[in-house]
C-alpha cells in the first residue's frame, strides 16, 4: 500500500489532469464489466497494462506482483464456476467423469463463464491499479471535493489519509525502540511488547489529535477545513485519446457480444 502511494506521486502520468485519469479508469472499467464476451476485457487488460508500464513508467516487476495479489482469490472463484457438479443425467461435458451418479466436469457453458469472469476481473483490477498508480490520494480527494461530495466525508478522508502516515511513523519508532531493547526477543516478550505498543499508540494518537486541533485553532479554524485547489487545465488531446480508446472498447464489446466460445461451439 505504501509503495503504491509512492509510485502515485512519482509516476510519469502524475501531471495529467486527475479528472481525466479518473474518467478513463471508470469508463473503461464499466465497459469491461458490462461486456459479455472476453474480447473487450482482454483488450482492457492489455491497454491498462501498457499504460501503466509504458506511459506511467511503473516497473513491470512491481506491477506483476500487484496483479498476482488478487490472483489467488480469482483462481478459487473461477474454479468453482468452471467445474460443474450435477446429479442428474450427464450434461454435454467437454471432459469429466461420472462417479456413482454424480458427474464432475467442465461443460462448454461453465468454461465460457469462467473465462469471462477471469478476464473481466483482471481487466477491472487493472483499471483500478491504473488509477491508484498514477493518481495520488491528495488529488482524488480534491476531485471529490470538486464534485461536491459532502465536506464531512472529504475532510475525514483527507485527515485519515494524513494520519495513517503519522501513526505508522509513530508505531515504527516505538517498534524500533522496543526491539533495540530486546522487546521482541522471545514470543512471550513479543506479545507483551506488542500489547504495550498498541496501547501506547492509542494514547499517542489521541494526544496528537488534540495537538492538531490546537494547531488548527490557532490558524483561525472554525469548523471548515477549507484549502485552495491548484486549478489544472484539462488537455484536449488527452480527452480525445480517452474517448477514442473507450469508443473502440465499447464497439469491441458490442461486436463480440455473442461471446467467443459461444461462436466456436454454437
Amino acid at each position, binding site marked *: 500500500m505504501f509503495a503504491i*502511494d*509512492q509510485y502515485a*506521486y512519482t509516476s510519469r502520468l*502524475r501531471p495529467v489532469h486527475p479528472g481525466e485519469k479518473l474518467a478513463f479508469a471508470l469508463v473503461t472499467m464499466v465497459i469491461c464489466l458490462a461486456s459479455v464476451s472476453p474480447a473487450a476485457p482482454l483488450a482492457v487488460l492489455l491497454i491498462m497494462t501498457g499504460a501503466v508500464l509504458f506511459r506511467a513508467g511503473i516497473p513491470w516487476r512491481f506491477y506483476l506482483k500487484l496483479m498476482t495479489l488478487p490472483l489467488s482469490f480469482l483462481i478459487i472463484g473461477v474454479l468453482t464456476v468452471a467445474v460443474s457438479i450435477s446429479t442428474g443425467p450427464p450434461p454435454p461435458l467437454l471432459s469429466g467423469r461420472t462417479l456413482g451418479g454424480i458427474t464432475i466436469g467442465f461443460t462448454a457453458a461453465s468454461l465460457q463463464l469462467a473465462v469471462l469472469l477471469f478476464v473481466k476481473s483482471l481487466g477491472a483490477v487493472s483499471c483500478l491499479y491504473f488509477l491508484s498508480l498514477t493518481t*495520488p*490520494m*491528495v488529488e482524488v480527494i*480534491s476531485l471529490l471535493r470538486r464534485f461536491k461530495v459532502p465536506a464531512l466525508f472529504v475532510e475525514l478522508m*483527507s*485527515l485519515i*489519509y*494524513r494520519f495513517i*502516515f*503519522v501513526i505508522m*511513523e509513530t508505531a515504527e519508532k516505538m517498534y524500533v525502540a522496543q526491539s533495540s531493547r530486546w522487546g521482541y526477543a522471545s514470543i512471550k516478550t513479543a506479545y507483551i511488547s506488542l500489547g504495550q505498543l498498541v496501547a501506547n499508540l492509542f494514547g499517542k494518537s489521541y494526544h*496528537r489529535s488534540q*495537538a*492538531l486541533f*490546537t*494547531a*488548527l*485553532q*490557532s*490558524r*483561525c*479554524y*472554525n469548523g471548515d*477545513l*477549507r*484549502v*485552495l*485547489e*491548484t486549478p489544472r487545465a484539462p488537455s484536449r488531446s488527452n480527452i480525445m485519446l480517452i474517448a477514442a480508446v473507450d469508443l473502440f472498447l465499447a464497439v469491441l464489446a458490442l461486436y463480440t457480444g455473442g461471446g467467443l466460445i459461444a461462436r466456436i461451439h454454437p
Partner: protein
Amino acid sequence: MPEFILEADTVEFSYPDGTRALQGVFMRIPRGAKVAVLGSNGAGKTTLFLHFNGILRPAGGRVRFDGREVRYDHRSLMQLRKNVGIVFQDPDSQLFSASVFQEISFGPLNLGLPREEVRRRVEEAMQATEITGLKDKPTHLLSYGQKKRVSIADILAMEPAVIICDEPTAWLDPKHAEQVMELFKRINNGGTTVILSTHDVDMAYSWADYIFIMMHGTVIGEGTPEEVFQDGELLFRADLARPRLVETWAQLRNKGLLPADLPLPRSWTELFELVPTRRAPGTGGPAPVYVLDREGTPACAACSARRR
C-alpha cells in the same frame, strides 16, 4: 502605537491535572523586536505562547495585544489569531494536509481573503522558506527539516504582526538551523515581531535583540543579550551556560589579551577583529606561537609540527 505589542501581566495558569505551569508571568514584547525566550524543559514557554494566541485563557492576570486586553469572544479571538501566529514545536501535529500547497492555503483562506490573494501569499511563503520545489510532494514524504519549513510557511502566509516559533532549530542540522534563523531575521526586517523559544544560548545571543529567561512558570530575568549573558548569577539560577562567544571573550579579557573597556562582540568575526595581531619584535611578521613540549621547555609550534 503602544511600545509593547504583546503583554502578559502576572498571568497564571494551571493544567487540568493540577500542574501550575504559569505562576504570575510578567512579559512585555517590544514591537518589531527579535525576542528569544530561554528556559529549561517545563519552564512554561509553550504554555505562555498558547496564551498569546488565545488558545489558553489565563486563570489569573491578563494578556494584552497592542495595548488592549484580549477578550475571548469568537470575533476577538479570530482577530487575535490573525495577528499572532504560532509555529508549533512538532510539525507533525501542525500539518494536517498531505498536500504542501493546500496545507499553506488553509490559514489565509480562513482569514476570508479572495482566492487570488491567497494564491499570492502561498507562493510568497513558499519562496521565503525555499520550499517551492516541494509544492507537489506529499507532506509524509518530507524530511523533518522540510516539514518544519512548511509549518513556518503556514504561518508566514497569514502575514501576522507577531510570529511565535516554538523551538525553531531543535532537530535541524546546523546548516538548516542557520537558514531558519536567517529567515526569521528577514521576516523581522519586514517589520514583523518575532518571538522564539530555544535552549540554544549561542543562537539566542547572536540573533536576539531582547531576551527573557523563564523558570518554573515565571520570568526570572530579561534584558539585551549583553546584559543577560553577563549576569553570571542569573545564568546560574536558570541553569544556562554562557554563550561560547561571551565565554571566549571573557577569558581573553581576563588573560589581558583584550582591553577591558571594549564592548561585548555580537559575532565571532567581531571578536576576531578585536584581537590584536602581535608582531614579533623587529621582524614585522606575526610572532611565533610557543607551546610547552614534554620536557617543559618552550618549543616552537611550527618546529614541533615538522618534527612529528
